[in-house]
């Protein structure tokens, strides 16, 4: 990991702070914040780059010099880069600058991070921020602990890993169909959506605060957009503890109002967060979504390819995919991979608290398990018909 700083004399005013991009492979996030002019010191453009690739500071400086040759906004620019090419860097800088200097407010509508045409994208192609915005009622999206709050993990930079300004977790307040809501969006492109101290605390804190509101008679609906491989290995036991607190908070909150998990892919929902999903009284999935405890690669590593051939994509989705999970009752609703469809699925769910939670269905699951012959290697379609239930 390398940090590069550059300062330029600047002249152009910018209208507003801006955030674009994601700290994902081949990509970068840019935080642009206006600096107020002061008479006693010259206007400047200050750029700080943290990049996952070492040895390219010369190239970075050239990219910045080249880009800011003729246009120097008075602002600070923070770049967290995960191996983007200069072409991608230039593109994101263009996007950021355009948003920062735009005079037409319409450009910002419905595009929480400023990128246009999100309505054309499938849900799975949207960033966590875009997904959260698409679920909330139009105009009600309000992010808390957003990029400018800089809730980045203190544990990554010491390990040479470029952090994300939001630690890969978006918390947005707003309403869903008029009712108060909080949407938690995990950014699957940042470290595989792994849960670290901060992202885990964001999720737990959201659920815990929703509980406080519920206990005082004003329940807040929490929707979890779960795009995660589980615990972020680089933070290990901090992630473990955070997930335990998330579990506790889901159980407590659901006594008042169901928690909804949305698992769309392409990362899916695994590990300790797979258990979190298993607690949720509502689970919405897409066909591309996958829900499990252990991923097939992990199983193949631990138990061999005969136990689970993780390269057999049909098998992977036949076992863990949304269609199978919904058909077997391990998830509830199968939705199309479009933001309108996901939003509709979420809105159509009943928000009255369950008397028998998903996690209470022990007898039913035990009866199904008794019908299973583990030595016979049951097929996914056989699971759908266990215990006389057909789907």
């Amino acid at each position, binding site marked *: 990991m390398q940090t590069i700083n550059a300062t330029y004399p600047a002249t152009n005013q910018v209208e507003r702070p801006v955030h674009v991009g994601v700290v994902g492979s*081949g990509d970068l996030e840019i935080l642009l914040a206006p600096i107020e002019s002061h008479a006693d010191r010259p206007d400047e453009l200050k750029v700080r780059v943290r990049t996952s690739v070492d040895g390219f500071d010369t190239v970075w400086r050239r990219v910045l010099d080249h880009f800011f*040759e003729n246009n120097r906004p008075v602002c600070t620019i923070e770049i967290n880069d995960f*191996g983007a090419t200069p072409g991608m860097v230039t*593109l994101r800088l263009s996007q950021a600058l355009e948003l920062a200097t735009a005079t037409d407010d319409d450009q910002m509508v419905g595009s929480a991070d400023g990128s246009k*045409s999100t309505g054309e994208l499938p849900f*799975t192609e949207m960033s966590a921020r875009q997904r959260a915005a698409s679920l909330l009622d139009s105009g009600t999206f309000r992010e808390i602990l957003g990029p400018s709050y800089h809730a980045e993990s203190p544990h990554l930079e010491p390990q040479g890993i470029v952090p994300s300004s939001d630690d890969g977790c978006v918390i947005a307040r707003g309403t869903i169909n008029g009712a108060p809501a909080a949407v938690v969006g995990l950014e699957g492109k940042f470290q595989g959506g792994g849960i670290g101290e901060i992202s885990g605390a964001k999720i737990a804190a959201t659920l815990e605060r929703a509980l406080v509101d519920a206990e005082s008679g004003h329940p807040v609906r929490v929707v979890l957009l779960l795009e995660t491989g589980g615990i972020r290995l680089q933070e290990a036991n901090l992630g473990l503890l955070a997930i335990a607190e998330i579990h506790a908070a889901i159980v407590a909150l659901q006594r008042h109002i169901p928690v909804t998990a949305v698992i769309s892919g392409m990362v899916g929902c695994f590990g300790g967060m797979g258990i979190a999903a298993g607690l949720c009284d509502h689970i919405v999935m897409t066909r*591309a979504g996958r829900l499990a405890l252990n991923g097939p690669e992990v199983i193949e590593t631990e138990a061999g390819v005969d136990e689970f051939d993780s390269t057999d994509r049909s098998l992977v989705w036949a076992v863990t995919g949304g269609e199978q999970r919904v058909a077997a009752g391990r998830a509830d609703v199968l939705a199309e*991979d479009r933001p309108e469809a996901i939003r509709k699925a979420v809105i159509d769910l009943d928000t009255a608290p369950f008397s028998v939670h998903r996690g209470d269905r022990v007898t039913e699951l035990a009866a199904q398990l008794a019908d299973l012959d583990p030595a016979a290697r049951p097929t996914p379609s056989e699971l759908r018909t266990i215990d006389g239930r057909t789907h």
Partner: protein
Amino acid sequence: MLHHTASATNDTRRDWASDRTDKTNRLQDANSYTDGKIIPTENIVDVLHAVLHPGDRVALEGNNQKQADFLSRSLAKVDPERIHDLHMLFSSISRPEHLDIFEDGIAKRVDFAFSGPQSSRVAQLIDDGTLEVGAIHTYLELYSRMFLDLAPKVALVAAVSADRDGNLYTGPNTEDTPAITEATAFRSGIVVAQVNEIVDRVPRVDVPGDWVDFIVEADTPFEVEPLFTRDPRKLTDVHVLLAMLTIRGVYERHEVTSLNHGVGLDTAAIELLLPTYGEQLGLKGKICTHWALNPHPNLIPAIESGWVERISAFGGEVGMSRYVAARPDIFATGPDGSLRSNRMAAQSAGLYATDMFVGSTLQVDPLGNSSTVTSGRLAGFGGAPNLGADSRGRRHSTPAWFDLSEGRGNLGVERGRKLVVQIAETFNAGAEPKFVEQLDAVAVGQSGGMPLAPVMVYGDDLTHLVSEEGVGYLYKAQSLDERRRAVAALAGVTPLGQQSTPEDVDELRRAGIIALPEDLGVHRAQANRGLLAAHSIEDLVEWSGGLYDPPAKFRSW
């Protein structure tokens, strides 16, 4: 001792039918192992021992896509004491046993066109002297030589099915088989075809039984890989930007109606932008109507949206059979309903009947020479140089071809020119510059003892160069120096790009030799994936109305 004078006497001692005699003898040797034309599967190695002689020239499919893998695996089992020093002809060196036979001494010399899947091993075997290379060709070039100086003595080919008379059905993946079998059959060579099954009646005759000496039912259906499928999820905003620049700056500017796309993510982005960006620009019907192209799944949205009139395919594509069969106005299909591909024909179409070639490259030098060859890998050429070069033998004119005419020139007469376009982002994903002072290909050629560096597209054939910095109209450059400055102006912050000055850029823009995105009305910030007509393989399936059957490795449901 009698002398024979040149003019006077017929040489009555010469056997003018020696090839035919030789063939008859070999067929005789094979007789006890065959049942008419049919070789029982378990007898294949015996038959190979009978019909092959040391030093023979053998064509083995080895196509770009389909592989006669039962025959190649069987060839690898022959006894090197009996069969050795074969001279192999491969369109594509694809399978491990294609090279195992060299290590085992069964084969010694090779002429080929492409070796992508085996490029590292090829480089290594040339290096240690195991592999003797005649030359690396383009596909069309290799078939052409099969009809002249490289006629195969034995051809080992793959077909879907055959009847007992040896009529072959090669179906969607017909590819090179008609060319190879004709070149072999009519020179008294021996054609052996592996088939998935022997049937009473083939759905249609792609290769007549008269051209085929033996058929054998293979142990498994012949291997074929989906080489022309690209997952739209892999396209980034930069791919979209490059595609927008190319559509506006080249396709629209020159009204290109017929073209070939070299397969890759850059061209996939162009294909997926036609129904959206292309539509916004009002270009439907004005560009991209005729294609020399394999059935790219990414072209489905454009086809369905009415952009395409005709596609001439080099080969098939796994998963596209039902879609193609349902679109017979677009694709060449037989009376049986399935696709007929033909690499030789489509390569000829790409050479003479298309206005433009567009492809991506790994490296480009200051004069516009480009190559996909890098150190340690010898991938060959495939079809690109054939498609990506000016067709100087062409005489018919189209608006695009004529548009590149730069006046009467040195010879006092005008001529048109083929558009040859290379797309190159300034840096690749490993943060290495694509714009370089000298192509790796030069060093590779030297260390490999090759007479020429393996250049894919020569700078003087290149008419347009596109990077994220803009579009270069290199055909307008009046001198090598101007060409060099144009390339540098597009080279961003690579070392080569650092040589460009703002004055250079201004001058080149005024001369119309380069155009920046803003000159083309392309806004960098507009470039995002949301513009693509399809974002995933599932979208393509939906566009096709469920007719596209993606292979397993592209499914995520």
